[in-house]
């Protein structure tokens, strides 16, 4: 279950490739390809490993408050498909 109060990181099985519109993320294990469609979401995902919890990464990326619930839902989806995982 995705818990934004915990520390997360990009899965080591994932390759993240910045693109003009955001980033492409490919999971070598599941062979799933995700498109992160805003530069801010890319910043959040790349920044996860540097923050004590997900909220910290979202804040540091400058995501406006009204959009945060949507970002958290998107991150929950990325956790569900293995793109991001809890940092132990």
């Amino acid at each position: 279950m995705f818990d934004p109060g915990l520390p997360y990181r990009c899965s080591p099985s994932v390759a993240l490739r910045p693109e003009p519109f955001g980033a492409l993320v490919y999971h070598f294990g599941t062979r799933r390809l995700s498109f992160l469609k805003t530069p801010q979401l890319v910043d959040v995902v790349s920044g996860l490993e540097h923050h004590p919890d997900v909220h910290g990464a979202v804040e540091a990326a400058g995501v406006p408050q009204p959009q945060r619930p949507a970002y958290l839902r998107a991150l929950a989806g990325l956790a569900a498909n293995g793109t991001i995982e809890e940092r132990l």
Partner: protein
Amino acid sequence: MAPTSETQPAPEEPVVEETLVEEVSIDGMCGVY
């Protein structure tokens, strides 16, 4: 600003959510055989 919830849909929110992440199969692009 009041937090949004399921029962009070903000017009912008669904659009943002829809476009934040899109998933495609690596096998789902034309031009590869």
